[in-house]
């Protein structure tokens, strides 16, 4: 049974009143009552007795005791930084890997996809806003240990665990532990990330992963700061780093009419990718649909996506896809040497995979990717 001090009792009362009146749970959590379920976080430093600085992501939140970071997932409790989302899984699905989208990574396989609450961005077009913009306490969640998660992946015969939907790096400690167990069971781990992580943290995590998909939201600082609540330069640095660490990397750009479809920016993005990641790094231009805070913007015209793809191809990228447009021919993987389709997709699913040992069956050209584990 939990025993309360007077202070905790008063805090609980405030919390109850707040929940009743505002319908939300924010900062009045009685700290020590729940702390037993929290995990000490990685990547932070103590500033003074009651203040810490989180160094996980470029937000670098300075937190006094009882306060949380912008991500809502890390809290300072009595001068120690804790992760509030360790194993606190709020979304759990088995998705085709193509849905992530990862097109050059074990095509045709399923990924056990998990997510927690919170995010270090606040994108106005977030499809998963219910996860990303919630506090952990606001969502129904289940505690799943890293060990259990890996076992469940095995039981479900999913060769991949994907940390996805919200920004996975905010559950850094959990991913770090899971990845090491998964390796023993030959289960691949991938993250579907915004790439907003500090160098020290990404250098420690990226080499352990099998693949990373980074949302390259725009080649524009203005877009990152006004629409996403972040900065461009750390994302660029992480894209570069992922490639350096030899993790399989795919990039996604959600094209939103007017906000990030400027041809010059698309060209700069393609040039950056070619220069720093190589011409064979897959780039997906995906179609925006009105959602969350951008409900009054029409879906991206398919011709805009095709124009973006043409620009990227002209800049020398070899695998440029169009996403969220089922049935479009640019969903398929085309051999860059002979121009023939080697993997055909319909919606989220691979319908034909003609690759032979990762090579084009027509001209024997190696198609970069992770085709088997």
């Amino acid at each position, binding site marked *: 049974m939990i025993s309360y001090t007077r202070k905790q009792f008063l805090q609980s009362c405030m919390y109850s009143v707040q929940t009743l009146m505002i319908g939300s749970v924010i900062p009045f959590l009685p700290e020590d009552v729940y702390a037993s379920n929290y995990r000490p976080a990685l990547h932070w430093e103590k500033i003074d007795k009651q203040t810490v600085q989180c160094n996980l992501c470029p937000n670098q939140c300075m937190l006094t005791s009882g306060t949380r970071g912008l991500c809502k997932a890390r809290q300072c409790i009595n001068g120690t930084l804790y992760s509030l989302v360790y194993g606190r899984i709020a979304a759990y699905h*088995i998705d085709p890997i193509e849905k992530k989208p990862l097109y050059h990574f074990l095509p045709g396989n399923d990924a056990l996809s998990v997510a927690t609450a919170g995010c270090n961005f606040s994108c106005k077009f977030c499809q998963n806003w219910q996860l990303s913009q919630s506090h952990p306490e606001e969502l129904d969640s289940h505690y799943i240990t890293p060990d259990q998660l890996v076992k469940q992946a095995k039981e479900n015969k999913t060769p991949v665990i994907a940390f996805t939907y919200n920004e996975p790096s905010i559950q850094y400690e959990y991913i770090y532990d899971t990845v090491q167990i998964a390796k023993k069971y030959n289960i691949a781990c991938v993250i579907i990330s915004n790439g907003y992580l500090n160098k020290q943290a990404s250098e420690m995590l990226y080499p352990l992963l099998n693949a990373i998909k980074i949302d390259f939201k725009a080649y524009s600082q203005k877009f990152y700061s006004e629409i996403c609540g972040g900065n461009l330069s750390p994302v660029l640095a992480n894209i570069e780093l992922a490639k350096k660490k030899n993790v399989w990397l795919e990039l996604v750009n959600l094209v939103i009419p007017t906000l990030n479809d400027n041809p010059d920016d698309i060209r700069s993005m393609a040039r950056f990718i070619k220069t720093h990641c190589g011409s064979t790094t897959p780039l997906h231009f995906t179609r925006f649909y009105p959602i969350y*805070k951008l409900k009054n913007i029409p879906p991206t015209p398919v011709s805009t996506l095709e124009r973006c793809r043409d620009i990227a191809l002209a800049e020398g990228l070899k695998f440029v896809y169009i996403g969220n447009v089922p049935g479009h021919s640019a969903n398929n993987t085309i051999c860059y040497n002979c121009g023939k389709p080697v993997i055909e997709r319909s919606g989220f699913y691979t319908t034909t995979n003609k690759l032979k040992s990762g090579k084009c069956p027509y001209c024997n050209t190696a198609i970069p990717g992770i085709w088997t584990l």
Partner: protein
Amino acid sequence: MKRNRIFLYVSTLFIGISASISQAIMIRELLMLFRGNELSIGIIMVLWFAGITAGAAISRKIKAHQFNSIAKNILLHPILVFISLILLYCTPIVYHTFGSFYPLEVELLIALVCLFPQCFIVGYIFPVLVNAGSSVPIKNPGTVIFLLESLGAFTGGIVFTFLIIQKINPLGTVLILFIIARIISFTVIQQRIKFLAIVTAILIAAFAIFHSQNVERKLLTLSFAANHPGALLEYRRTPYQMMFIARLGDTIALYGNNNLYAQFPDDYQVRPIIHALLSTGSLLKDTDILISGDTAFLHYVFAYAGASIDHVTVDPVLWNIVQQKFISIYPDFPSRLINVHYDDTRNYLKSTTKKYNSIIILPPPPDSILHNRLYTQEFFNDCKLHLTPNGVCIIQIEGFANIMNPSLRRYIASVINSFRHVFPSSLISAGDTIYCIGFNDTRETDVSNYLSHYIKYFSQSPISKTIQSLVPGFSPHEFKMYFQESQQKYLFKQLQSEHIINSDLLPKGYFEYLANSLKQTYSIAERIITNPLWIMLFSVLIVIMSLWYFKSRGIQHIVFGSIIFISGFISMAAIIIALITYQNVYGVLYYKIALCNALFMLGLAIGSATTFIQKDFFITRIVVLIVSVLLLFSFTIYTISLIFYISILLIAASTGSLMPLLLKKQTDDIQLLASTLDATDHGGALCGALMTPFVLLPFFGIYSLGILIILGFTLILFKKHI
């Protein structure tokens, strides 16, 4: 003296007309800026009544120059409305919300700035007019002024609905009101009418009216450019909505009341519907299909494949635009093969006996009662009645991305439960958009068998070649992505815990959808407004403040004020419920708002006229009120429009008769009593406007009328005090 009396009558009539026309204009224009649903109307009404309440409460006796004061106020009203309109048009140019809507706090602020001053004048002037009436003198000045103001409002409503709405833009309308006010005011402010001054003022205003269209166009174009992608091609005010048509790349986007409705071509958006219909085994050729929704590609494909298509749309302008733009993209669009019915979908189904092989319903999300009525159990029943024995009904609803919060869960559950209740044999997909296929007969609904059968059937079907030639890259395998196993398991697990139904009488789907939409704004106002406790607390606060404010005026003011407060509450709540009920039955209402308002005002006028009779008939009036609320409830069952109109008229007449009746009881300081009663009337209406959409309707739906009947009975308790 006679001249003063005429001036008083004309001014009173004018302020009624001006207030009623301004209200209709402001509602329409604010809806364009806001979300365009009942919540917006709620905000507008609350602030409207708050302004009148404040104006009436503050109104003090003016001993000297009271006619000058009246003249200045009636002149000030259209000026304030004009300024409000300009502010309203300029706000989105200055404060951008690209692709989204304003937070609730900002909406409240805009509505406050635009509405409060003009409503303050309307509230302030009533007691002054009553007092001026007593000094002219007029017998029963309270009754006469109330009667004339109500008649003015009635006239304004009628003129707006049948004359102004399609002919003159809002700025022009307000300028006309200004000219009339100027003419009326000249007769008092200046003893010698300066002909030249009048002519100059009229000429300037006429010049402004002439150019108001250009001014409006420029302001709206700037505002559109600041908040939407693409370029505004044109805008049109139809009786149903304000349409914006914009070009974005090689597509055309349509906005109704500033909400994105559709984008053309919509060939990729509607592919799942093509799958859904083909998966049912439809061969399309020689089948009858009913389509409701802003789409064109479906018509194109199905008509080409040989189906006979009935398309139902309420707004002819909307369909003409769709057709025109689609023909420019697909020159071979088979318009002649499509029978268009300009009607509300529910009305159409009620009026036809035709049976369809397929009914496809693609309404906008249920963010208003108007749209929600295409998601209710009653509507699905109507659809079922019009299906052939092996017919299918297909709907799409906004779904979830990976998880659901409680509001989203309840909204989705209420709609799916309603659908499955009507179509026990049905197939439900899961994901961002949920597709529901309901079978009139019993079919295989195991997903994997169903999908395998579709893939097999499609490859052998004679229709496959036609479809693949019209829809590039079309493959039946694609349909599988909408039935992802874990998403389906999650959806059905969530549905198990929710048994609610979305019905006309208790539109749970609408309220939950609205709550979920509001949640996305993360505003304090949203948290307050969606929490019934706050609303109740606020209403109690208004009651306490009213009691405190009027206690110094004596016990009579408290008693009379209480009667009027309760009747104001009942009338407002009943009208909101009536409008929602009307929408449920007949669909689009907004173009009739001014008419309903006019009818209500006519009721008030009739009610006040009945107080010329010597005897009080207090109990009779309350009984009429209770009966009229019961009558309104019967409208939900019998759906006869005459019942609706009679009940509105009776509610207004019975509640509207109370204020003149009580004013009759006072001979000295009638302005003070008029101030109390006008303030409490609108204070009650304010609480009604708050409590009804945010507390009563979400919990009790249309059954809230029962609470109004109980409140009506409490009025009888006051009999001994009057």
